[in-house]
């Protein structure tokens, strides 16, 4: 069957898609943060990033409960802090910045799906914490765009450049 075409997330997803604790997959692990930039180097204040990753043991089964709800009034409670759901979602702030709190993935990378106003079809990239985990297929001159920079113990910086000199590697997953 032919797939349903993609369309942009638009500018007004902000009251629908982000949820409390979306950027905190787990506490007590690492912080990865950065900006999203456009081709002119300007921050993108209306991007939405989704993260999907393995648990520290490399397990990719995930768990429900990312959007856990109060059984009485339906309010969003957020994660219970015990189950590792593996999924996060963060909207960039007015400065184009995002922050993710999570655990180190057992397979070395965090998958990222980028949505934005002006982006008609989302993009996939990956955050790697170490070069040794890079796949073979990366163009050597651009591979560094997938490597998070350690800033201090447990804090890593990862910027997404949608276009331009520093353009991030985006994947075709087939």
């Amino acid at each position, binding site marked *: 069957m032919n797939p349903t075409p993609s369309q942009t997330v638009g500018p007004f997803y902000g009251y629908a*898609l982000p949820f409390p604790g979306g950027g905190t997959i787990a506490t007590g692990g690492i912080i990865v943060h950065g900006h999203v930039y456009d081709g002119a180097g300007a921050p*993108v204040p209306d991007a939405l990033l989704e993260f999907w990753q393995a648990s520290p043991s490399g397990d990719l089964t995930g768990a*429900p409960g990312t959007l856990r*709800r109060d059984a009485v009034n339906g309010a969003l409670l957020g994660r219970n802090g015990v189950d590792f*759901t593996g999924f996060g979602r963060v909207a960039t702030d007015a400065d184009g910045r995002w922050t993710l709190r999570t655990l180190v993935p057992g397979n070395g990378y965090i998958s990222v799906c980028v949505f934005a106003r*002006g982006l*008609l079809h989302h*993009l996939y990239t990956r955050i790697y914490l170490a070069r040794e985990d890079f796949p073979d297929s990366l163009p050597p001159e651009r591979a560094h765009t997938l490597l998070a920079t350690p800033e201090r113990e447990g804090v890593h910086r990862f910027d997404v450049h949608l276009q331009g000199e520093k353009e*991030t590697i985006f994947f*075709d997953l087939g």
Partner: protein
Amino acid sequence: MPTPPTQADIDREIAELRELRELRATEDGEGRDHPPRDYAPYRSTALRHPRQPLIALKDPDAAELTGPVFGVTDVAALDADLTRQHLGEPLGERITVRGRVLDRNGRPVRGQLVEIWQANASGRYPHRRDDHPAPLDPNFTGVGRCLTDGDGGYAFTTIKPGAYPWRNHVNAWRPAHIHFSVFGTAFAQRLVTQMYFPNDPLFPYDPILNSVTDERARQRLVAAYEHDLSVPEWSLGYRWDIVLDGPAATWTEENR
């Protein structure tokens, strides 16, 4: 400030790009199911599309071949009825939208999250950055969620959204639409898209819809009015099925 483009300028660009993409598709079999990320008539794409080619990743162990899971803890009963989320009832034409989420082999995507958001009947979003001077509706937020059932089915009760202006060019109007966010069994099947209503006179003028240059693919974004889905004395019914794209590897694996 450069002069903002007129509708005629945008119409010309839409026609040119459609013709160009038809030619290219015949030559190299480039896919036409999805819009190109570089699509000039939608002005915001200019600085937000990558110029480098995507890097093919073929890894049977890729994390993207699996994906997040959701369950009954993640949705509340009233999430799928956007007309009952406030003390009063929203204004507008009440509708029900139903359909199935399928993979490319036509198999249902079961127990997965479907999220929607939309403008109210007047074409206004309750978003700080929406300054369209149309009335907000205190009884309508325009956000819904549900999990697909055992047949991949989803259903929402809502009101028909209004068209609204935007500033892509002079006199730019978006056709009425509902935004959909859908998960498959693999992160690589992720889809965010928009559902349109049949026979909207604004279709030819909208660069976002027309970024899908293939007519048949564009039609897949348009719901069908289905009289049997209309609820007597209550709501008008629309059907819209969603087919998720995704890597070949996910097509042959048995679903969870």
